[in-house]
């Protein structure tokens, strides 16, 4: 089968799943058990979504949020991958950082927002730092595990062929740990979204999807809240398909280090 055919089919499958979820929601909304102001019909949510997209406000909110996510996620990758590799390769680095990481990791990023607000004020800096904090640990932990589970026979074989530390690092350890690193990026991205929405609710002023949701609550605009959630879901879906899915197909799936589900 062609790539295009497969792509079209997976899009149809995704549409079926989403349509089913929408139908369940609509049935609940129309059942009469809940106040329409609390559980608006889909048509109203869609109208609000189209209106806010058309006037550009939703796009701008999304752009602010996306900027904070990408900035924090990028920092998490820049810190998490190298530190994870160093921790897995050098006992001294592991001994130093592991207690720190173990103690910091369980602290919910949300619990740091008030503190960061006092330190860094309201706005981008605080939200980006919160995202960075939340996204770093999954990246770090997966990389650390991935490097430790690189098959020793690859290191041995590479050593026989004269690989120095630099070549081992780039040509064996990084590709060898890639299934874990990609999983780490996925989890890290997810945590980044959880963190950004929470941080924006408290520590952002005027812009961001988290702020939209929090602000809409004041006026009982459930349709706006749901529209913002749809936008978050859509961005997540697009990233999974376009970024992580493609990355996986170009690397670990192609190399047979991971397999697609069968049947």
């Amino acid at each position, binding site marked *: 089968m062609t790539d295009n055919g497969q792509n079209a089919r997976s899009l149809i499958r995704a549409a079926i799943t989403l349509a089913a979820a929408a139908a369940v929601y609509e049935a609940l909304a129309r059942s009469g058990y809940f106040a329409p102001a609390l559980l608006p019909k889909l048509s109203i949510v869609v109208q609000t979504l189209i209106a806010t997209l058309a006037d550009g406000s939703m796009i701008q909110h999304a752009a602010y949020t996306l900027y904070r996510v990408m900035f924090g996620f990028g920092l998490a990758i820049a810190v998490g991958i190298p530190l994870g590799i160093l921790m897995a390769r050098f006992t001294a680095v592991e001994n130093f950082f592991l207690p720190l990481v173990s103690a910091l990791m369980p602290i919910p990023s949300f619990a740091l927002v008030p503190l960061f607000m006092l330190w860094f004020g309201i706005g981008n800096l605080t939200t980006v730092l919160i995202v960075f904090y939340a996204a770093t640990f999954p990246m770090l932990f997966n990389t650390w595990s991935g490097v430790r589970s690189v*098959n020793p*026979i*690859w290191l*041995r*074989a*590479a*050593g*026989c*062929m*004269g*690989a*120095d530390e630099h*070549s081992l690092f780039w*040509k*064996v350890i990084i*590709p*060898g740990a*890639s299934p874990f690193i990609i999983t780490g990026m996925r989890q890290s991205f997810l945590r980044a979204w959880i963190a950004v929405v929470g941080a924006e609710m408290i520590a952002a002023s005027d812009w961001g999807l988290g702020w939209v949701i929090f602000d809409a609550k004041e006026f009982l605009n459930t349709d706006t809240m749901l529209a913002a959630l749809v936008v978050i879901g859509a961005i997540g879906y697009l990233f999974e398909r376009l970024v992580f899915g493609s990355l996986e197909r170009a*690397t670990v799936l*192609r*190399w*047979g*280090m991971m397999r697609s589900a069968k049947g």
Partner: protein
Amino acid sequence: MVPIEIRDVTLVYDTPGGKVPGVKNVNFNIGASEFVCIVGPSGCGKSTLLNIIAGFLTPVAGEIRIGGKPVTGHGMDRGVVFQDFAQLFPWRTALGNVTFGLEMKGVAKDEREKIAREQLRLVKLEKFTGSYPHHLSGGMQQRVAIARALAYNPAVLLMDEPFAALDALTRDDMQRLLADVWRATRKTVIYVTHNVAEAVYLADRVVVMSPHPGTVKAEIKIELPRPRDPLSVEFLECQKELLGHLGHDANANEPVN
């Protein structure tokens, strides 16, 4: 292409249960371009000895000289082929795997790909240069591993039961292929196996080891002309002799009164 001297090599494993002798006072020489098989039951230290020669393990006593130079750690004068198919890098094509050693040596891209193609032709995989390892069968993967170990032109080829995990038919093909490759390249080969027929088919000389602790029990020259016929009377005689040294007397299965 260079001789190897193994002098009083002793290695002791430090395990949680105490010290376990691996090999003890092992002595033998290997001539330039000689094909030597090391044979013995499980636990006789044959793989340990190969790992010492490869430089992965350091003996507590004795030394190994390759071409007169003492072994300290692994080096590019030796190519190693392991039993595990997973030894290939899954993220590199067959060609990419074979070029790895040349890349480390700093050979230019065109040149190393040319050499790698030649090596893959030697193991009859010229049609699969662009395939990733997971698309190749076990036998093909082991052939890529042989090509990879030969590509950077080491003087010595060390092989640790490379065909043990293959089915019998594929193994026969691989043994013929390896005999051809050896004839073409004239490497000094040390080949570890527990398969007696394989040793008789491949080796100029067979070193028999016995366990607890691993020591050399016998050395047998195989003087059969090549290519060897595994069904000939002489071949079977050699096998029988070798089995005798391994403690499997040809009459051992008869009931004892």
